[in-house]
């Protein structure tokens, strides 16, 4: 029973990776990371039961709590990058 659902989650993870690789925009990649994070939480919870060690749910709990920090950091990054571009014309792009 657990193995079926964990396989389903693995397939959805693979699809999310395809989205992350194809892009096209940066935000698509962030979206893929976000989707992937949720799937990892679910996978870990299921696998903890599959292995019969439910005390390892701590890992899923850790991800559920701190996974979205990355996405918030992205929002902050784009916000302050816009600000930085006003400060400095050469901005976030490498000189060419």
């Amino acid at each position, binding site marked *: 029973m657990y193995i079926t659902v964990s396989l389903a989650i693995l397939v959805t993870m693979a699809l999310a990776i395809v989205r992350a690789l194809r892009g096209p925009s940066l935000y698509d990649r962030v979206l893929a990371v976000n989707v992937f994070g949720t799937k990892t939480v679910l996978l870990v919870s299921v696998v903890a039961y599959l*292995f019969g*060690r439910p*005390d390892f749910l701590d890992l899923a709990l850790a991800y559920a709590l701190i996974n979205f920090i990355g996405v918030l950091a992205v929002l902050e990054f784009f916000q302050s990058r816009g600000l930085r571009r006003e400060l400095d014309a050469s901005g976030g792009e*490498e*000189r060419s």
Partner: protein
Amino acid sequence: MELLGLYNYWVFVALLMIGFYAVIAKSNLVKKLIGLSIFQAAVFLLYISMDKVEGGTAPIIQAGVVDQVYSNPLPQVLILTAIVVGISTTALGLAIVVRIKEAYGTIKEHEVSAMDREA
């Protein structure tokens, strides 16, 4: 089945070489550090692959369960500390890259060394 048992090691080799390629072929210094992180992760994977025992479980002893096989705790201890050390050393590398950018205006390795030669 015999060969599948070595799959972990092949993935380790693949990751190691991908990281290695990034370090030697890319001239962007941040990219080199990213490659170094992948290289590091490959080594972590090697160690953790070695700790697995067939039919075993994580080495946290369950009260009242006898005859349980446990995986090897030693590689886990080594890698556990290595992960935190890895992030701090990567941070140090990034700090140096930031200073290079400020001093040279670029983070391309060959441009930095060209400027060094001119100076």
